[in-house]
C-alpha cells in the first residue's frame, strides 16, 4: 500500500513524502503539498478508497513548523525551514506559516493513515476547498476557518460553525486575545 501510494503521490509533485514510524507518530505517510495540489491529493486518496477523518490547522506564529522531520533524502529545497532544528523561534526565519493538516484513513482493513499537510503564508492563508469532492470536509473546513481564519476558496458557506453567528475573531490563532 505504502509504496503504491508513494508512486502515486510522485505524480503530484509533492514538496515532501515521508514514511513515518507508525508506532510513534500514529500515521504512516506524511505528505506535504502546495496549496494548488490539495484537491489533487484529495482526489487521489478518495479514488484509492480513503476517507477524510479530520481537517485542522496549526498556527506557526514566530516558530518554525515542526511535524514532519524529513529524512535527508527527501529534503526539498523549497522547504528549508522544515529541516531546521525545531522548537526554536527562528529569528531570521522567513514569513510566518499557517499549516492545514488533512488526516486520511481507510475502513477496509488495510491499516494506512496518511497525513497531507499544506503550509500557507500566514498573512494570506488561502487554499482551495475539497468539500466539493468530499462532502464531509464541509464542516471541517468551516471549523478550521472559524478557528484560524484560513479561507477555503470555493467553499459554499464559510459562516461560523462553532462560534457565534457574528463572530469575527479566530481564537486559535496564537496572537488571539479575548
Amino acid at each position, binding site marked *: 500500500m505504502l509504496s503504491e501510494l508513494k508512486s502515486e503521490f510522485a505524480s503530484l509533485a509533492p514538496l515532501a513524502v515521508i514514511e513515518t514510524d507508525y508506532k510513534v507518530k500514529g500515521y504512516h505517510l506524511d505528505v506535504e503539498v502546495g496549496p494548488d495540489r490539495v484537491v489533487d491529493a484529495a482526489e487521489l486518496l478518495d479514488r484509492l478508497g480513503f476517507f477524510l477523518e479530520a481537517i485542522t490547522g496549526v498556527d506557526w506564529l514566530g516558530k518554525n513548523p515542526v511535524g514532519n522531520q524529513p529524512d535527508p533524502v527527501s529534503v526539498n529545497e523549497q522547504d528549508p525551514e522544515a529541516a531546521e532544528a525545531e522548537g526554536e523561534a527562528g529569528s531570521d526565519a522567513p514569513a510566518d506559516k499557517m499549516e492545514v493538516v488533512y488526516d486520511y484513513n481507510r475502513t477496509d482493513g488495510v491499516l494506512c493513515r496518511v497525513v497531507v499537510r499544506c503550509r500557507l503564508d500566514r498573512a494570506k492563508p488561502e487554499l482551495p476547498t475539497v468539500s466539493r469532492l468530499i462532502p464531509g470536509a464541509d464542516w471541517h473546513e468551516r471549523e478550521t476557518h472559524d478557528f484560524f481564519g484560513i479561507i477555503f476558496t470555493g467553499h459554499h458557506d464559510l459562516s461560523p460553525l462553532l*462560534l*457565534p*453567528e457574528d463572530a469575527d*475573531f479566530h*481564537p486559535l490563532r496564537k496572537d*488571539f*486575545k*479575548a
Partner: protein
Amino acid sequence: MGKESLQSAIIKFAPLDKLLDLGRANSLWPMTFGLACCAIEMMATGASRFDLARFGAEVFRPSPRQCDVMIVAGTISKKMAPAVQTLYDQMPEPKWVIAMGNCAISGGPFVFEGQYGIVEGADKLFPVDVFIPGCPPRPEALIEGILELEEKVTGHRRWPRVEAV
C-alpha cells in the same frame, strides 16, 4: 410615627399565601433542558434510583410555559446565552432557577485567561435561587437543591438537615 394598631383585616390573605406557597413548593416542575454533562445527572435524578417523583418534581415539561423551575444544567456558551435568556423570559411567574454544577455557577473549569466562549455563571443572565456545586453534582445534591428551593419558598424544611460530621 409611633406604633399604630391596625384594624385586623376582614379577609386574611396570609394563610392563603401560605397555602399557595405550599402548593408551589410541592409541585416544582422543571424544564426538560440540559446543556451539558450535568443534564445526564439531572436525568439520573429523575430515574429509578433517586426518583425525583417522590417530591412531585418529576414532571419535566419541555415547554417553558409550563415550568416552574429552570435547572441550568451545564455550561452556558455565549452563543447559547440569548436562548437561555429567552427561555427564562418565557416562563410564567412565579419561577425559580437552580444553577446546577460549576459551569452554571461560575463557568467552572472552562474559565481561563483568554476564554472567548462561555458566560461565567448563570447569574450573569438572570437571578438564581439555588446553586449546586459539583462537576457534575451527584443526584443527591440535586435533590438537596430542590429541598433547599422548597425551603426557600415555604420557609420550612421538609427533611431534617444532615450535618457533616
